[in-house]
């Protein structure tokens, strides 16, 4: 069982924020509209609790963009929205006035694109600050309940690296990050949409991460 010190958590948050700043800039450019991304909350919690946090929204259909990574760091990054919010995000990003009741194919694709940019920002934070080698799978689009989205057994990466067995151990950790998207519509009114970013790490990955953070902080 381990946890991050306040200083380590702060450092991690700063990395993420820098990454998000970049992501927001590229999103703004992509949609021709100012997009602000911020990270009001970062929690390191056991896997079970991460599941619970999302299961609270059980009745809702959730939409997620998922990216698996393998290498020295192995795990899964997820950007999760309630279904309606994800539609709303695409609409406001594209400044679309259309009332569409279902998430259409192209909108799924657009959301995948946006989610990919955001998740890359997180993953890039790791590659830029630390001397860690890892590879990334392409982003995928998922729809379902919170439990389904976090079900490690369903993750290819997990299956591949036998993360499955470790998942049940009590020291399994997940990062749960609250994320806010702020955009402006045509009338310049600001919209804020909240989503979750969940980063699941295998236990060895978590240890590598802590080690790397220590190294960085030790430099000062």
């Amino acid at each position, binding site marked *: 069982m381990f946890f991050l010190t306040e*200083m380590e958590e*702060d*450092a991690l*948050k*700063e*990395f993420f*924020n*820098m*990454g*998000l*700043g*970049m992501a*927001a*800039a590229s999103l*703004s450019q992509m949609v021709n509209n*100012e997009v*602000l*991304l*911020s990270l009001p909350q970062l929690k390191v919690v056991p896997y079970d609790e991460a599941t619970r946090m999302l299961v609270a929204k059980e009745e809702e259909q959730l939409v997620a963009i998922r990216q698996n990574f393998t290498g020295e760091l192995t795990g899964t990054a997820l950007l999760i929205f309630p279904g309606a919010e994800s539609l709303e995000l695409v609409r406001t990003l594209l400044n679309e006035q259309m009332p569409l009741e279902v998430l259409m194919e192209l909108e799924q694709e657009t959301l995948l694109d946006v989610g990919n940019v955001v998740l890359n920002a997180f993953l890039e934070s790791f590659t830029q600050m630390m001397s860690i080698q890892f590879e990334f799978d392409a982003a995928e689009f998922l729809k379902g309940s919170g439990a389904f989205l976090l079900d490690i057994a369903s993750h290819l990466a997990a299956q591949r690296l036998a993360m499955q067995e470790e998942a049940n151990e009590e020291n399994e950790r997940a990062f749960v990050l609250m994320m806010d998207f702020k955009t402006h519509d045509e009338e310049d009114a600001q919209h804020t949409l909240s989503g979750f970013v969940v980063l699941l790490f295998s236990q060895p990955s978590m240890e590598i991460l802590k080690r790397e953070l220590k190294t*960085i*902080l030790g*430099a*000062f």
Partner: protein
Amino acid sequence: MANKTAMIVDDSSLARMMARKIFTTRFPDWGLVEAKDGDEALALAPPALDVALIDFNMPGMNGLELSEKLLTRFPSLAVFLVTANIQERMHQRAESMGIGFIKKPIDEPKIADILDKFK
């Protein structure tokens, strides 16, 4: 040469640590005041201040708001917003106030660029 004073305002201790390291190793003549948010910055600001490096995204007042306040107190202060994400809107507002930008993360060449002007 009289000693100059700079201030770093950032809610991230990592960012403050990085700044401090650059100042102590590379610009030891400079005094550095650290603050974690706007309120602390206003409270800790020394009587004479030459440069302020201010994070944009902070709890409480944001970097731009703090800049406005500091500029009324120190009209000749050189203010730089430190941010990873320079949005057009913010850029225009800051420029109209004569505020500069530094892209995150802060590193030695970027700081040197600013401080060298004070020689």
